[in-house]
């Protein structure tokens, strides 16, 4: 599907780019090791692949509806149960396996292969590189299966999910508060990487399999029999949003987000849970970061993740409803950015809470500013590069490469400034200027492109 959307060459080049980044990045390892132990670096990489698993899993959850909106009557494998003699659980199982294989060859294998090929030149034994391939694959699968597991609970009972998350948080918090142990140390793939043993491997696989089997067992397909009648929310909401330049578009998007379940689902699975996990991984790096560095590194990462909220507001739309209305693409982009702005309340509250809870209340405001500046800057790049199709075009190698370079440069500059002095984070407001320029350029660019759906 991805190759059909933006050409087989661009698609084929994507894993090659990942390979190239890993291969060249590996040569920087000797430099990084001088300031940070290899174990901590491995921790970051494992956390990144765990996060990737989370993100892929969260998209997979919503893929059904997303594809239906994008392609109208075209249907996914997920719909086959209605026309073929296959059970929903079987299709769900195939769906998960397909996702695993697909993303393994798109992301995990190219990354590890790059590292494996570079390992003889940087003095890393081949066995260590192969172990990394195994443990990163497991880290990715943990992210994926955890989201599928939690979403299977979520589909059955939201209350049950909240209870499960609450219990998990209490257990995690207790371990940190009373035993002074960071549970991230016990992340099975990380344990395996730091001390390979067959027992650790078995433990990793057993826990993973349990998550997977439970997810398939708990999976309950969407019930299509009930048709609900809902009261008219659009008109009152649009009236309440008259302070915005285009209240009708914002009202439609907010209703879409709420009724599709993605406002809660995405906030949980694509934002709060991944970031909570990342926080625990990053907190292990505390000793190797400058004072207050952890909060600002976390604010930067939250900013990047918060920018993906732009994909939340574009993923459910097809061009159909707009094609017959006098609405140019630039106006829809503005509408989506309005909704995006309203959603930024989530990262603002999140970073502020983390700042306060970690005892750095004084720096909560500069951290929030840094987070918002990064988020808008990254969203601006997305608008310019992908218009209304960020979910799709992100796998175009050219788009991804430009995005990474533009974002990487800004992140390096502003996280370094924040590390040097937390108050320098305020300098990141300058990022709103290129963000605005990217958005303006994006509007002109995508108005000129024939809209074929997004």
């Amino acid at each position, binding site marked *: 599907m991805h190759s059909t959307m933006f050409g087989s060459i661009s698609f084929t080049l994507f894993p090659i780019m990942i390979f190239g980044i890993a291969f060249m990045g590996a040569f920087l390892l000797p430099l990084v090791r001088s300031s940070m132990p290899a174990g901590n670096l491995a921790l970051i990489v494992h956390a990144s692949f765990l996060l990737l698993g989370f993100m892929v899993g969260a998209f997979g959850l919503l893929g059904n509806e997303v594809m239906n909106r994008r392609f109208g*009557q075209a249907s996914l494998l997920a719909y086959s149960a209605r026309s073929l003699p296959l059970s929903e659980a079987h299709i769900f199982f195939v769906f998960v396996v397909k996702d695993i294989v697909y993303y393994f060859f798109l992301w995990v294998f190219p990354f590890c292969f790059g590292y494996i090929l570079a390992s003889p030149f940087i003095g890393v034994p081949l066995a260590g590189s192969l172990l990394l391939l195994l443990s990163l694959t497991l880290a990715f699968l943990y992210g994926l299966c955890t989201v599928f597991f939690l979403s299977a609970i979520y589909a059955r009972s939201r209350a049950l999910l909240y209870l499960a998350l609450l219990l998990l948080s209490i257990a995690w918090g207790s371990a940190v508060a009373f035993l002074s142990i960071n549970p991230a140390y016990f992340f099975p793939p990380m344990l395996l990487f730091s001390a390979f043993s067959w027992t650790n491997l078995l433990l990793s696989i057993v826990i993973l399999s349990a998550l997977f089997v439970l997810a398939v067992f708990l999976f309950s397909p969407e019930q299509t029999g009930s048709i609900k009648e809902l009261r008219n929310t*659009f008109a009152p909401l*649009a009236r309440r949003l008259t302070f915005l330049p285009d209240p009708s578009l914002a009202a439609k998007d907010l209703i879409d987000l709420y009724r599709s379940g993605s406002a809660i689902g995405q906030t949980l699975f694509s934002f709060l849970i991944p970031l909570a996990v990342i926080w625990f991984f990053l907190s292990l790096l505390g000793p190797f970061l400058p004072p207050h560095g952890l909060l600002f590194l976390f604010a930067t990462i939250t900013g990047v993740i918060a920018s993906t909220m732009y994909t939340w507001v574009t993923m459910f739309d097809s061009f*159909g409803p707009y094609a*017959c209305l006098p609405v*140019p693409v630039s106006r829809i982009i503005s509408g989506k950015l309005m909704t995006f702005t309203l959603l930024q309340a989530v990262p603002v509250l999140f970073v502020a809470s983390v700042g306060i809870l970690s005892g750095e209340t004084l720096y909560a405001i500069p951290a929030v500013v840094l987070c918002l500046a990064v988020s808008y800057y990254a969203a601006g790049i997305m608008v310019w590069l992908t218009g209304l199709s960020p979910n799709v075009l992100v796998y175009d190698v050219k788009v991804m490469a430009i995005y990474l370079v533009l974002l990487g440069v800004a992140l390096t500059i502003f996280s370094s400034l924040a590390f040097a002095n937390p108050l320098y984070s305020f300098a990141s407001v300058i990022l709103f200027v290129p963000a605005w320029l990217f958005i303006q350029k994006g509007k002109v660019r995508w108005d000129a492109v024939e809209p074929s759906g997004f």
Partner: protein
Amino acid sequence: MTMILQAHDLSKEYGDVKAVDHVTLGVREGSLFGLLGPNGSGKTTMIKMLTGQIRPTGGSATVLDLDVIRDPVGVREKVGIIPEQETPPSFLTAIEYLAFVGAIRKIPDLEEKADWWFDFLEFRDKKNVLCKDLSRGTRQKLMFAQAFLHEPALALIDEPLINFDPIMQDVVKEYCVEYAKKGNTIFISTHILEVAEDICSEFAILHKGKLMHTGPVAELTGRGEHLPQFFLSLVLKGNHV
């Protein structure tokens, strides 16, 4: 009579495929114009170009004196459009979708107008149901209502009757005829030839992207010919050519 829609040498190519191949045609104000053609003949592409949804690769077109290439949004502001695939937003209810369209088009007395359509097309009981839960026929009713909500001087409809039951087909056909009688213009694309012969005042036949014929229906029936036979002979001849 004034021409409300004019296409000159209009073309659309997708790589090597010529979806619409140098088509020149005009539609008179107050007419009910039928664009006929087999599947894949370029009818939908033609409607999309004339409503500024896609850009032609060659030629020009004006709709209500607006250039479809230079001012596609202006064209969509004035006309009503019913696309081939009915795609109202999934998570709005029927009434909310009409309210959304009304807000975008700045239509006064929207609730009153929406209520009239719910009654006229007999789907009041579905007004609070999410669009994704509506049947295809009801979605088509909703799309029909949104296209005429602002009472456009020109409505372009791609396959107007395809999802309607025979009773609703009659209601809609009658509405189109009456709407045109009031001086408005309706441009429909269809491959249901009997419908075209029944309600259209003028027609054009498109085949493999090329315009095969255009003229009044009365001219044809005056010669004792019927549209379906004429269409078949022309298209079959086109296939042999």
